[in-house]
């Protein structure tokens, strides 16, 4: 079976499972089921985006939670102003998703552009540390926003409004998130297979070769970084609506590490693997938290094992057709 077939097959199987899952869960009468599935889909959106730059470009960003938090804060803060009746920069805010969501993604794109430009001057471990440090900067700024709850975070009175879709309906919200995930995976797949994506991957294999062919690496890497930031920001937007609550915790480095762990667990550079990774990780987290409040004592060693033995991830070997590249 060719690599393409395996991708399509896996994608279809996953999609069928994710479409059917809410009905299956509803049959069991378990109320936590749909929220769990929604969390998985939202996380999947974030980690697929991260896979785009780590898996295909070897750009290990240790600060992606900052885009997650900025996406979330944008919608929560602007909606807050509408509800409070005061203005922000002379604007009374809005609760309309059609306005808020694009604005939030734009903010993530701009932030990604600035931080990417600075961070991409470096490679390897420098890049890891610099993305981490910028995320910390965002974290401290969020903590210092006393007006928006500071450390405690900001509650949303209601979810954003969208014509034709009731975001308050858990089913509708889940399927909206799933639809966005599908579109995003297809978009990322398109990017990866395009000329742009080929150059981007070529840079990972040999920067010198690409440079000798007359390629300037920065625009390619920067564009991929910004796309990845936007996808993670969209996950943040959905998360804010799901939880109806944003806190600076969304920007912590532990969150960034969690994203990286999920990508690796699922399979680097496969786009679909991370979705399976998200399901496994969040499912495991759910099971462990029921079992013990000290679940980190189990999760920690699991991360170590993933790092030591799980280089291919859950689906890496299958989706890459057993080939190493």
């Amino acid at each position, binding site marked *: 079976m060719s690599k393409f077939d395996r991708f399509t097959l896996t994608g279809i199987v996953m999609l069928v499972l994710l479409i059917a899952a809410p009905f299956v869960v509803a049959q069991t009468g378990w109320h936590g089921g749909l929220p769990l599935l929604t969390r998985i889909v939202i996380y999947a959106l974030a980690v697929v985006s991260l896979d785009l730059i*780590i898996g295909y470009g*070897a750009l*290990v960003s*240790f600060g992606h939670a900052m885009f997650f938090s900025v996406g979330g804060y944008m919608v929560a803060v602007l909606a807050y102003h509408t509800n409070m009746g005061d203005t922000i920069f002379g604007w009374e805010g809005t609760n309309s998703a059609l306005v808020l969501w694009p604005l939030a993604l734009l903010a993530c794109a701009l932030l990604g552009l600035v931080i990417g430009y*600075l961070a991409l*001057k*470096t490679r*390897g*471990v*420098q890049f*890891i*540390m*610099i993305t*981490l*440090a*910028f995320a*910390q*900067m965002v974290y*401290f*700024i969020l*903590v*210092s*926003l*006393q*007006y928006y709850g500071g450390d405690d975070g900001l509650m949303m009175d209601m979810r954003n409004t969208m014509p034709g879709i009731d975001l308050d309906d858990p089913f509708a919200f889940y399927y909206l998130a799933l639809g966005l995930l599908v579109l995003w995976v297809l978009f990322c797949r398109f990017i990866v297979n395009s000329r742009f994506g080929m150059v981007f991957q070529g840079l990972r294999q040999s920067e010198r070769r690409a440079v000798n062919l007359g390629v300037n690496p920065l625009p390619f890497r920067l564009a991929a970084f910004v796309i990845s930031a936007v996808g993670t920001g969209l996950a943040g937007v959905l998360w804010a609506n799901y939880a109806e609550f944003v806190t600076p915790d969304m920007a912590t*480095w*532990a969150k960034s*590490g969690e994203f*990286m*762990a999920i990508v*690796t667990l699922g399979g*680097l550079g496969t786009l679909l693997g991370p979705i399976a990774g998200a399901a496994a990780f969040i499912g495991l987290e759910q099971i462990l938290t029921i079992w013990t409040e*000290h679940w*980190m*004592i189990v*999760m*920690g*060693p*699991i*991360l*170590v*094992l*993933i*790092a*030591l033995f799980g*280089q291919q991830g859950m689906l890496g070997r299958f989706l890459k057709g057993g080939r190493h590249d």
Partner: protein
Amino acid sequence: MILFIEQVLNGLQYGAFLFLLASGLTLVFGIMGVINLTHGTFYMIGAYCGALTVASTGSFFMGLLAAMAGAGLYGLLVESTVVRWLYNRDHLYQVLATLGLILFTNEAVTLIVGRSPIFMNIPPFLEGSVTLFPGLAYPLMRLALIVVGLAVAFGLWLLVNHTRFGMLMRAGADDRQMVDALGVNMRRLYMSVFGLGAILCGLAGVMAAPLLAVEIAMGERILITTFVVIVIGGVGSIRGAFVGAMLVGMVDSLGRAYVPQIFTALLPYSVADTLAAGLVSASIYVLMALVLLVRPYGLFPARS
């Protein structure tokens, strides 16, 4: 003027403390190419071992020994069980494995010692303050930290530049295979460097313990700051770690003292208050961004 000198001393003290952590982290990275997030955890282990030993024996020197031994032993355990297998692997896996170790260690310490912070008294011979000159009395404990930091800096400089061990370290950083082929036991060399880094963390932990609460997440907070230090200084360079630590120490302490004043003088109070608080906590990251704009690989890049 007195206030200014006091702030500079505070900056020096914070810088010396950061250097104790940054030197080990940068050595481990520069020589073994490992990005080690558990560095902050060694610091926490050191602080706990120190504080608990002082509480039960009453002797600061016993605490000092326990802190360095505890952090050093835990460092060796981490090296031999996990980090050793990651030397030639992608940084991503090093980050994940050491992140997992942090989560594990934090939870394990919580289970053993509990969640509430521990406080450690300043040892009697370092209590009180000395009058440096009329009008400026400075706490002895903080002076001790400055002295220890500077002594370690000098000691490391001697070790790296004027001993056989240091020569092997530098050679191993440049070309591991060659040094290996010359009959040097690289495994032992790496273990020693890793252990040395962990011992310095323990030292930092026990020296800082009387000045702040010993608690679970203390390692992570300082770890990120330590990263900023070595990114500014140039990853892998001891000299860079020293300069970076001092710069970060100064910017942090002077920022805390003067940024709010400047902002309240220029802006309405409500705005100034929020902005200043944000800028003060983010100031070292702003410093880092500025340095990177000019020198992407830090002030003293270890390898070009």
